[in-house]
Every structure is written in C-alpha cells, then in structure tokens.
C-alpha cells in the first residue's frame, strides 16, 4: 500500500479558499498547530472553521483568514477567553455559528454517518436555536410526540488532527488522557490530514500499547504529516504539557497589531521556526 506520508509542499497544496475546515483537539489541548501554521502560510482565505476552539481559531482570526467560526466555545484553558477570537468578535469582523457543545458533537457524528441530522434535546429553549434559525426542531414520530432538535450534519472539506503517533498507512494513536472527538472530525471530512509527533511502523504502534489507543484507523485518514512538537504550545500529553509562557506571549500579542505581527513572524511565517508547531 502506498505511503500517505506527505511533505510540506504537498501539505500546502491541500488548502484552498472557501474551505470548511474542522480542527481537532479541545481548547488549548492537542491542537494541530503545525497544520494550522501551514494553513496560515498557505494564505487560504474565506475559511469556515469548525472547532472546539483554542488558539487555532484565535490565530486564524488574527490573520483575517476566517469568514465564519462554528464553535461551542473558544478558550485557552488557563486564559479563559481567547483574546484574538474575542477581538474579532467584538470588532464584528467574523461570523459565528455558536452551538451547544453537544450539538456540535451531534452534527459531526451525523456527517460521519452520512445522515442529514442527529436528534438531540440539547439546544431546546436556548438562544443557540434563535441565533441559528437554519437549525430546525422536529416532532418525534412515535407516541411521545416529543419536540427535539434536528442538528444538521456538519460536513467538512478538511479535518486537521494531531496525535502522538501514526504510521504511513494512516493509523493514528492517541496516548494522552482524552481523544476528544477527533475521530468524529476525521469521519465528517472529505479529506483528513493527520499530523503526529512521530511516524513509526504499524508494529511499533502496538508494541507496549493496547490497540485501543489506535483512535484513527486508516479508513479515516488521507494524509500523514510528521510534526514533532506539532501541537506546541498546546498540550500533547504524555509527550509535553502546555507551554504556558509561550501561550501568555501569544495572548498578549492580541493587545496590538505590532505585537501580533512580531509573534507571527517569529513563530508562524518561518516553517522551521522553533514554535508553534515545529521542533520544540
């Protein structure tokens, strides 16, 4: 079977204007920052970003590449409100579809299952429904007649995911405490790009680790990109914790355009920069 491992030139060719891109991880945890940096360098614009949002969303807001964010929250964990996202929201420069977190999970799951929607109670009575009139309620066809939310499928052109390890076939291994919903992102996407701290043989993946750690199987992954430190400055346990100092520097850069340009030039524009999403 041919290898799915790609280099950075091939990676760059996978991004285009107007894409709907789902980004795995959660908040400032195990975000695919190397892939996000590549997306920034590609210059692709008018993006719709789907995320349990963290600095991935904030950076793409700061670069002006985002048209719309589909999210349940955007946070840096140790800094509660993502300052670059907040700045874009308060300036009114981005659209948002703000969903209850469990609705976003439902939408991704429906897309992966090739269903038009998933039924849930979540969202009933809240302004998540009034602010998103495209989301409809339905009546249970059974005796109960319950009113329920029909959460529409959230289909993705691309999914970007970072895991601890992968093989060249596209099997992906999560060794950290929480897989979040990265597998749902992978299944919801036309094309999934998996970056990993290291690319090893399939045999090495299961040496000393239960196969249950293999979160993604190769039917869910189209391309593999080796990116040591590829989630940095977010957590990638057990490989590394969050770099709180760099995160503070990133957050502080929201206070002026000059500071942001400096951060971007230092850590993102140069592919071989030390961080984020490069060698630590």
């Amino acid at each position, binding site marked *: 079977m041919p290898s799915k491992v790609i280099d950075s030139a091939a990676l760059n060719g996978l991004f285009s204007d107007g894409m709907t891109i789902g980004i795995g991880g959660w908040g400032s945890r195990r975000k695919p920052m190397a892939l996000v940096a590549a997306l920034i360098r590609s210059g692709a614009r008018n993006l719709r970003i789907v995320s349990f949002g963290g600095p991935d969303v904030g950076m793409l807001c700061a670069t002006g590449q985002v048209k719309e964010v589909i999210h349940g929250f955007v946070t840096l964990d140790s800094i*509660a409100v993502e300052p670059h996202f*907040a700045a874009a929201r308060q300036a009114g420069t981005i659209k948002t579809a703000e969903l209850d977190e469990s609705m976003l999970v439902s939408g991704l799951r429906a897309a992966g299952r090739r269903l038009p929607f998933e039924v849930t109670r979540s*969202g009933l*009575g809240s302004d998540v429904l009034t602010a998103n009139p495209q989301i409809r309620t339905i009546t249970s066809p059974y005796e109960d*007649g319950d009113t329920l939310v029909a959460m529409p499928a959230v289909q993705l052109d691309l999914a970007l995911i970072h895991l601890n390890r992968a093989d060249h076939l596209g099997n992906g291994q999560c060794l950290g405490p929480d897989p*979040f919903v990265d597998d749902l992102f992978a299944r919801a996407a036309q094309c999934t790009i998996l970056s990993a701290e290291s690319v090893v043989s399939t045999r090495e993946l299961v040496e000393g680790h239960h196969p249950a750690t293999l979160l993604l199987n190769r039917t869910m992954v189209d391309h593999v990109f080796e990116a040591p430190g590829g989630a940095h400055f977010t957590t990638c346990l057990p490989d590394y914790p969050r770099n709180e100092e760099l995160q503070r520097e990133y957050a502080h850069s929201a206070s002026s355009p000059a500071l942001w340009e400096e951060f971007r030039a230092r850590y993102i524009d140069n592919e071989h920069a030390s961080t984020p999403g490069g060698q630590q």
Partner: protein
Amino acid sequence: MSEVTIPQSTRAEIAVTACSDLFHGQGDILASPAGIIPTIGARLAALTHAPDLMLSDGESTIYAGVPALEHQGVPGGYLPYRELFELIAAGKRHVVMGGAQIDREGNHNFSAIGQHSKPHRQLLGARAAAANTINHRTSYWIPKHSRRSMVERVDFVTGVGRTRAENAGKRAARFHQVHQVVSNLGVFDFSGPGHTMSLVSIHPGVIVEEVIESTGFALNIPDAVQSTRLPNRQELHLIREVLDPLQRREQEVRS
C-alpha cells in the same frame, strides 16, 4: 453533635455548606461544580450527607474518594469529553454553573455581553449550558451578586429557565430542573409566580435590603425571611482542615 459552641463561620464557609446542601438526597450521579466554593461544597457533601456522589477532575478522570482542593486525587474511573455528553443525556448529573448573567426566570448567559452578532464583551461561548439545563438538574453559583450578574433579562440564553423550557415544544421540559442559585448573599429558587426567582434564605450577616438592592429585578421575598444555616462543627473541620487548608474559598468570597 452540639452546635452551641461552634466557632464563627466566614461568609465563604456558609456559601460552601449552602453549595453542599444543593446535593441533598443525591447519589450515583456526577456532581459537576464550577468555581472554588461549589467544588469544596460538592466534596463536603460527598464527605457528609451524600457519600455516593461521583466527583471528577472536570477533565477525563473520575475520582476514587474525595480529594482535597489542592490534591490530584486517586483515579477511580474514566470520563473522556465525549462520555460527558452521554452522561448528560442520561440525566446522571447535577451541575453547578457559574455565569455572567442570570435573570428573573432562571435564564443564564456566559456567552457574550451585548448584541450577539457584535458583542460588547465576548465571554466563553455557549459551552454545554443548554444541554445541561434541558437534561438534568442544574444549580448556579454567583460569587458576586450584583445588578450586573442578576439581571431582568440575559443578553443571550445559554442555560434555559423553566418558562423557556416549557415553551420550547411538547415535553421539552420533561427533564428540565433548575434547582437553586447560591450567591455570596443568599440562596434562591424559582418558586415565585411563573417560575420566577425567590429568596430562600439570606446568609447570616446579610440584610434583606442588601439583597434587594443588589438584584436587577423584583425578587420574590417571603414574609418571614429564613437565614442560611451555619456549618456545623464537623463541616467546619472538613472545610478548614481537610478540603481547603489554604483557604482558597476566602479569595472567592471575602467576609
């Protein structure tokens, strides 16, 4: 146990026991407290009247036993992010949420302040407040009770109050249960006309006028105002010596 000679309790400690009392009669559910005082309160409940409560680190680990505030705790189970939504849908949870705004009808907001399309101040986002309120028992913790946090109408409804839940469609409110609000001033529920907020008790040291003055809408005030109970000797020992020896509670609510 005699309560005659108990030492003076701080406001924070009274709020902790009020949060503990939220969990009366509950067991084999996940207690999900947000904030320092509700966290101590839930753990106090588990150490006293509600020993079967399940506690977690708020991430992927369920605790075996009841750790102190500053301790990691011993793992006793696994609750990754996705499983939390299964647990919510099954109704096996009582969440105590913080919030920037709560209104007279029990609607809650921690999404954004101002017009939602271009807010004056972006906050966390919708999170799972809507899922929580429509699926299982929900309480609220307001450490700074003021006209900014207790408002006539929230700017964006994340957590759903009773009237909105009932009006959301047939049987939409079948699992809805907004229980109580604990603030630094008192305890409240939604037993007023049309499920509006009522004063249950004021914390010792607070006068009713202060509560009325600090609330941005007309509270229902009972004729005879109750006082929030004081922690007993055992509870004070657990709060001070076991759960929170570093007194982080006093930073969240100052006496």
